């Protein structure tokens, strides 16, 4: 009996150690949120881990807090930077957390560990232009109560957070006439242009000085502390942990503001900024290679073609038989056409996010979403292409005494080819455009420079993704036009 228990125990230990991620040959997967500071911290961590001789895979700008947290808990990534306030209020909002010990204990339940703070507090704040604040005599957030005419522009995540606008509005009793959600990196532009008057800030944003903004006093102490930390999985390779925890107490607010400024305002590459920081503070010499324009374009093109090609290819293989089924099996017709129709009405962004719990992050969920999107035009056109074949043709085929399968293969499908091809063309063109959203869940492609461009407020970067995507769509359309013309000949 004792032997049996021992056996069972050793088996458990064995399986644990072999299925837990202890092998060093698998890369450490790093995620970052969509804003610059998170990307820089991710890049610093990447270079730190690599300088210790481990492989890494980094998913930059993966999404908001929820997506990163779920990816971490779901073992899609191993580590990402976050803030204590966000973790307590946003992620674990329903739990009673009084102090650090509570926090660590609760995180432990999820199999997550937290590094010590880096040494800067990147709290939320509200800000407005210095001269307007002086003119209206606004010093603190409470003062905003008297100015409901001011228009507010908040980052989308801030809008929806308990520790953001939802709570703030209640505590300060604010009822502004206009509140808009927008990308945080575009908010400064809107403020500068005078379209909005009050925005949310991260206190380490370099733009605060750059645009000469007034940070309004949080006179009711609403915003909690937002100490920057790394969250990492407890089952991560123990050898890697020192590379993650080496930044505890090592990054000051000024250093972070400066790095944010270098990337966002001076247009420096985040890898270069991270590398210099490591060299200056930790004597770590990291290998970075800054990709040239053409290399980058080529990589994005390959990624994009991969997403489009696989998803469209699968859609063609699956959708044509479904379309045929819809014609042949009367009872399925409405159901099938309705189902693929409904798929099409799901907003593409939502569909992508729905895929994350099913398929994780990266290219696979993006391909799954694009595949579902590509179904409708092909199914519908296959169906209508066969359905619209004239009665005399249909009768003549049957009258020849040919079996149904042969009629389908030799007559119905060939006659439906122009229609099916038009459906594939529609799918392909939509697919090329929609695939740019794939970057949101770490799939790469032309969406990557667009996302980075939005984050850095850089039109050239946005165009670096948008123009090739548009050209590819035109190219695909042109190719299909050629094939159609060739078929008609």
């Amino acid at each position, binding site marked *: 009996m004792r032997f049996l228990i021992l056996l069972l125990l050793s088996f458990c230990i064995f399986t644990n150690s072999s299925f837990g991620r202890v092998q060093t040959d698998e890369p450490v997967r790093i995620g970052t949120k969509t804003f610059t500071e998170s990307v820089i911290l991710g890049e610093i961590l990447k270079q730190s881990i690599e300088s210790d001789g481990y492989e890494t895979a980094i998913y930059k700008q993966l999404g908001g807090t929820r997506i990163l947290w779920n990816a971490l808990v779901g073992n899609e990534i191993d580590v990402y930077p976050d803030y204590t306030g966000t973790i307590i209020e946003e992620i674990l909002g329903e739990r009673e957390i009084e102090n650090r010990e509570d926090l660590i204990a609760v995180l432990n339940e999820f199999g997550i560990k937290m590094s010590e703070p880096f040494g800067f507090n990147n709290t939320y704040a509200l800000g407005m232009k210095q001269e307007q604040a002086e003119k209206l005599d606004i010093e603190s957030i409470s003062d905003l109560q008297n100015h409901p005419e001011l228009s507010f522009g908040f980052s989308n995540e801030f809008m929806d957070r308990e520790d953001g606008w939802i709570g703030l509005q209640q505590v300060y009793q604010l009822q502004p006439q206009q509140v808009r959600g927008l990308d945080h990196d575009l908010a400064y532009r809107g403020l500068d242009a005078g379209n909005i008057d009050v925005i949310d800030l991260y206190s380490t944003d370099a733009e605060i000085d750059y645009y000469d903004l007034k940070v309004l006093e949080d006179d009711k102490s609403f915003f909690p502390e937002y100490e920057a930390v790394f969250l990492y999985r407890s089952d991560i390779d123990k050898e890697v942990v020192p590379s993650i925890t080496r930044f505890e107490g090592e990054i000051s607010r000024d250093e972070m503001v400066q790095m944010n400024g270098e990337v966002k305002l001076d247009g420096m590459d985040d890898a270069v900024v991270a590398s210099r920081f490591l060299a200056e503070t930790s004597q770590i010499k990291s290998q970075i290679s800054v990709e040239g324009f053409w290399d980058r374009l080529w990589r994005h093109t390959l990624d994009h073609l991969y997403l489009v090609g696989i998803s469209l290819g699968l859609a063609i293989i699956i959708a044509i038989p479904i379309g045929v089924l819809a014609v042949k099996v009367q009872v399925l017709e409405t159901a099938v056409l309705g189902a693929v129709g409904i798929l099409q009405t799901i907003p593409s962004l939502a569909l992508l996010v729905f895929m994350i719990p099913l398929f994780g992050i990266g290219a696979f969920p993006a391909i799954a979403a694009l595949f579902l999107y590509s179904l409708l035009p092909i199914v519908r056109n296959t169906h209508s292409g066969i359905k619209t074949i004239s009665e005399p043709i249909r009768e003549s085929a049957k009258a*020849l*005494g040919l079996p149904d399968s042969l009629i389908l293969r030799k007559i119905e499908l060939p006659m439906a080819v122009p229609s099916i091809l038009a459906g594939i063309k529609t799918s392909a063109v939509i697919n090329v455009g929609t695939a740019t959203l794939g970057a949101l869940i770490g799939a790469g492609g032309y969406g990557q420079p667009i996302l980075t461009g939005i984050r850095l407020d850089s039109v050239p970067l946005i165009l670096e993704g948008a123009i090739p995507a548009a050209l590819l769509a035109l190219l695909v359309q042109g190719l299909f036009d050629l094939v159609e013309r060739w078929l008609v000949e």
Partner: protein
Amino acid sequence: METSRILYIPCMIQTRYISKSYDQKVLDDVSLSIEKGKTVSLIGPSGCGKSTFLRIIMGLIQPDSGEIQIDGKVMASKNALALRRKMGYVIQSGGLFPHLTARENLTLVTHYLGWDKAKENERIQELSELTNMNPSMLNRKPENLSGGQAQRISLMRALMLDPPILLMDEPLGSIDPLVRYELQNDLRSIFRELNKTVLLVTHDLGEAAFLGDEIALMKAGEIIQTGSIKEIIEHPANEFVKQFVQAQRSPLEEY
């Protein structure tokens, strides 16, 4: 005397009490027997059910009630394919497959049945001569054929397997008069030469008389009278038959 003939000579096509309704009754207990080698012209006003009757014999539509025998075999779903191959089917227009050349239209079924190339070519050669079809036209797609040429190809396709029966639904309905006259001559000699059993739907009494050994006159889903043109003109079964015959205008009457 007529009935005794039908009883003793084997019939190629025999229908008994065929009825079919859609929103209203289209066919009402239609019975018709056609002896082997005879041509019957089925004639009647538009919408009288003659095309539906033809489709039912072809097995393209299921009747609500009644029975069809082809060459002595009762048609059922399990022998429908085989029986269809005993019948060639020619319709007014649009029956050729537009994505295939004329030759491919002809060989679709023989290819399926596994004929070799030589046998196919030989058969096509025979039928080209029979139908006065220029073989150089065979590589064209239907859209590049004239109406008359398309109908000759349709006829060739119907005859590819040398079926004992031909069912034709207004085969010359959309052909202009000169070509039509020529085709009527060709059809008559082909029917005689090949000894086919033919059921031909037409709305033209002249054509019906010219091509048919017998004429079956249909009205509102019922066969009113069957007989030779002589019998129909001299002994019309009722007032409708009389009117139908009189309503055929001869170009000479105004002269």
